[in-house]
């Protein structure tokens, strides 16, 4: 499973990547692989506020639906509209073209509640046992 060195991770397998004044959010390679072929993504509305670990989006695979939780709190400023027509981008490029939302984080200290790449890797090892 691919893990990106400088991203931060949740126990629910979301990732966050810090760009200049905002953060990009998506789901991990492990998450997309466990879900299988993704067929629908319900995106949040732009300009809405979300709390850390609150429901952000939902994704459906051929056989199941799962909620995606926001790794950080803040205001949603952009969503990946490409996922509406091409939800499989999450399977093909979970860390890049399959991003879900961009958020202006309200409190960067919340990063302390997340795992770094190394911690996430060990966490995955325990999940897979």
């Amino acid at each position, binding site marked *: 499973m691919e893990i990106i060195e400088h991203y931060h991770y949740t126990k629910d397998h979301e990732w966050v990547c810090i760009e200049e004044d905002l953060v990009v959010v998506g789901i991990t390679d492990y998450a997309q692989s466990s879900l299988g*072929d993704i*067929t*629908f993504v319900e995106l949040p509305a732009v300009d809405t506020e979300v709390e850390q670990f609150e429901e952000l989006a939902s994704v*459906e*695979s*051929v*056989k*199941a639906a799962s909620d995606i939780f926001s790794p950080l709190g803040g205001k949603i400023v952009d969503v990946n509209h490409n996922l509406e027509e091409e939800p*499989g981008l999450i*399977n093909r490029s979970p860390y890049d073209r399959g991003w879900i939302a961009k958020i202006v984080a309200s409190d960067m200290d919340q990063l302390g509640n997340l795992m770094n790449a190394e911690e996430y890797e060990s966490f995955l090892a325990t999940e897979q046992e």
Partner: protein
Amino acid sequence: MENKNLKFTPLHDEHVSLKAKMVPFGGWDMPVQYDGILKEYEYTRRGVAIFDICHMGEFLVFGDAVESGLDNLVTQKIADMPVGTCRYGCMLNDRGGIMDDLIVFRKAEQEWFIVVNASTTAKDAAHFQKHLSPKAQFKDISSQTGKIDIQGPLSRDVMKNFAPGIEKLEFYSFGMFKCLGEEVLISRTGYTGELGYEIYMPWSKAADFWKALLKDARVKPAGLGARDVLRLEVGYSLYGHELNEEKTPLESSLTRFVNFDKDFIGKNALITQKNIGLNEQVIGFTALDRRSPRAEQKLFAQDGSVIGVVTSGSFSPALIKGIGLGFVKTGYAKQGTSIFFGEDKSKNPAIVSSRIFYKGGSLKQ
């Protein structure tokens, strides 16, 4: 999630070496996917795929169609079946509830091969033994019988090298073919809406057949995930979902597989129900977008009142929309009716439609 009580098919090692994702199904540890459900779906609709179906049950009955009691166990007439053909029907309890859906094969004038669902095999065997006449001979050969389905528009091309003479098999007929040194039963049947065959071989030979079929580079393995999408797109019922002991074939919309001109267990209950009228029945419905219904979600009328329950649901790759089957109150069963599926707090629009969602299959080519 190890479950020590799960049974393994003779192809279990093959699935593990192909790195399949395994799930429990009807008491068996079965492959849900290999390359991914959508890929395996495409292999089956456009090319050819094989499925491990060794978990299903098989019985042999020897005796006269009617005197043996077999005809009385099935909603379809079997006495007039030509040798070498198969017929799909239901087995009912006294209340008309569906104990199982099954296929009867007539191997000889007085020899019958019956294929039943995996999770119901033991129950079905007991029911057969209870109701067959003492003159009939019954054998449960499930544990000795392996089964591989080969499905897809290219399946005939693959099979003609493998089982010479297979080209002559017509839809819903079967024959005995010499394959890999074994005399095996092959029927032109399936659960995908595509041209295809089901091969019944000795349990101990199943892995040899699986490996031999995969040697043809066109043939890909497909799991239960793809199989469920494929069957749902053509509106086939799944036992435990659209069919169960509390529902009759009339409610499950399988009336065309019931022959009222003959006797069978449960017939009186069906006649009573026919006279009173149905309260609910199975419908097909199509979502307006990609969001897909899921089994056990509710179905709602326009005014928000609950009118039924989803029994099967999936994303349809052919329609690029969600599709489902479910029970609704009879007043809402008309095609074109606007309904909703989902939960109380999130309802998604859908239209009652034909349960045959995909009509482009190679089934009868």
